[in-house]
């Protein structure tokens, strides 16, 4: 997708910049803009006709391509960065007192004696087909572990999103409606405080109150195969609450800012001057225009949620991806760290992409950039 359709781009400034941006990501050198314009002038290529007929689909395809390119660059960076940084794994792994022979053996075992490019290509090839190799520490298949744990993490994130999104948008609307009055100020101060709370503090506070003092929730949040759905739900109640509290304030503040941005526009002022009620202005004039930024906010915060999961899982001893990664980092189990890093980055990148695409879909003006 990144190479094929790019053969004949449209010679507008925007596409030129897009292409430039992408090829820099991929290869480190900017594309030759004159060549792009020349090819565009010839015209008639498949991609050019496609852009003309289906501008929206073309835009989305382009954004998709950018994300794939970005992900590729990230994989290169994770792998190359690890290689470029000092520190020999075999020595770290065996300790300082290891004999050179033992170090040599383990290097050969782990395949570290092969050149980097070869290892990267085989790793990437495996990653694309869903095979992340075997863990150095446990000698188990990384993909198998991730398969189990990814589901758990997504389960957690899904319910956190389910609770936090409507709540955040609702509270954001309330804050806008009572802008600069008491409810808004209270929401503002509380959300400011909530932003500053570290995830683990919120988590332990909730454990202390609900699990230890009142005994209404379970800790640690253990889930296992074949657990009943309702048991599972009650096990993840506290982790979900923690995630919601952490992400809610961000999302609400950004929602408030997005809506206020719309509210300060000329047509809302006109509506105010016409004497319409505040509610009507919000519902009929501001909301349709605020949908795009709000969707954007939600998607961005879901991306944040994916990362917030790491700390929350460690706090609640929840068997998910985040805990797997942190454990692997402490014992320097590189295949696991690489795989988890790539998967977290992939979720982050694609949620950001979803934010962009949804914004384009919801706001036609973004389809025709200057």
């Amino acid at each position: 997708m990144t190479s094929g359709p790019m053969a004949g781009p449209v010679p507008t400034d925007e596409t030129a910049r897009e292409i430039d941006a992408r090829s820099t990501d991929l290869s480190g050198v900017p594309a030759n803009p004159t060549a792009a314009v020349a090819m565009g002038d010839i015209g008639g290529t498949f991609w050019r006709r496609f852009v003309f007929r289906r501008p929206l689909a073309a835009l989305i395809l382009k954004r998709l391509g950018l994300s794939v390119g970005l992900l590729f660059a990230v994989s290169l960076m994770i792998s190359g960065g690890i290689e470029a940084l000092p520190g020999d794994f075999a020595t770290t792994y065996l300790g300082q007192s290891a004999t050179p022979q033992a170090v040599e053996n383990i290097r050969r075992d782990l395949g570290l004696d092969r050149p980097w490019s070869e290892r990267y290509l085989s790793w990437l090839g495996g990653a694309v087909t869903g095979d992340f190799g075997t863990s150095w520490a446990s000698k188990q298949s990384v993909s198998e572990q991730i398969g189990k744990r990814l589901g758990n993490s997504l389960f957690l994130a899904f319910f956190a999103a389910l609770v936090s999104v409507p709540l955040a948008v609702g509270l954001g609307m309330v804050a806008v409606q009572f802008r600069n009055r008491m409810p808004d100020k209270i929401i503002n101060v509380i959300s400011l405080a909530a932003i500053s709370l570290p995830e683990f503090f919120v988590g332990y506070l909730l454990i202390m109150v609900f699990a230890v003092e009142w005994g209404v929730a379970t800790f640690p949040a253990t889930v296992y195969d074949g657990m009943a759905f309702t048991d599972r739900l009650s096990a993840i109640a506290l982790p979900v609450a923690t995630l919601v509290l952490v992400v809610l304030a961000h999302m609400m503040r950004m929602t408030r800012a997005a809506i206020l941005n719309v509210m300060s526009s000329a047509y809302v002022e006109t509506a105010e001057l016409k004497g319409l009620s505040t509610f009507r202005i919000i519902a009929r004039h501001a909301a349709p225009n605020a949908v795009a930024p709000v969707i954007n906010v939600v998607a961005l915060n879901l991306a944040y949620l994916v990362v917030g999961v790491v700390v929350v899982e460690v706090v609640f001893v929840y068997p998910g991806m985040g805990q797997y990664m942190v454990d692997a980092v402490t014992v320097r189990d590189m295949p696991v760290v690489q795989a988890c890093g790539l998967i977290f980055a992939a979720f982050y990148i694609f949620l950001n992409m979803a934010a962009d695409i949804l914004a384009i879909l919801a706001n036609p003006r973004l389809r025709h950039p200057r």
Partner: protein
Amino acid sequence: MNVKSIPISAWVGIAGIAIAILCAAFAPFLAPFGEREIVGEIWMPAGGEFLLGTDNLGRDLLSRLIYGARTTILVALAATVLSFALGMVLSFAAAVMGGFVDQLFSRFNDLMMAIPTLIFALVVLAVLPQHLWILILVMAVLDSTRVFRIGRAVALDVAVMEFVEAARLRGEGSIWIIFREILPNTLSPLLAEFGLRFAFSILFLSTLSFLGLGIQPPAADWGGMVKDNKDGIIFGISAALVPGAAIAMLAICVNLVVDWLMKRTSSLKGGRGDA
């Protein structure tokens, strides 16, 4: 700036930061016991000789909290200052030179920002040996991506304003323009950004220490203290919550001040995201 125009919330923030800095500066005089001194039973309740109780090894929690302020604030501050220096130099260079350099820096910055900060830090810290300066450097580099973005936007924004143009036409030199025209007009948003990054650094450092990848024991640091005492939670021992609350308080205070600074400069919008 009028002292009376500072809102109460900002005063609260300033007071909180001042207390934390005093604790950090005069830790040996304020702390009743030593940082690594074992003075009692493990997890003794608060009150009596030990104001906040003792920790998982029988060390005085209050003393460790005061010494921890030193480590936490110092490391977070060092990382923030470094990230600012790095981000500002690179962003101004990008804005001034433009063209290929700007493209290269900006695209690389985009790439760095495409990876979640915590995940990036985990991957990098998994490889690097555990030293304090490496930790500070990693935090600074990861944070400088945000500073770069803001710095570049601000520099491009202000450099084309009329008063800069006017100063140029008056025949002022570039040093005058940077220090007397651009800097005073960018100071407020940059100061707000500095506060924001500092608050984020505190939280980030605490998170890393909590995960066991930040500051290594036996040095006291707030995130690490939460980690040390977390096993007590299940027995109803709140020792882990005390350093957690200290982190939260400091971050809230910084944010209160930042919020006020932001409101003063709402015309220049800064990004608040920090995932």
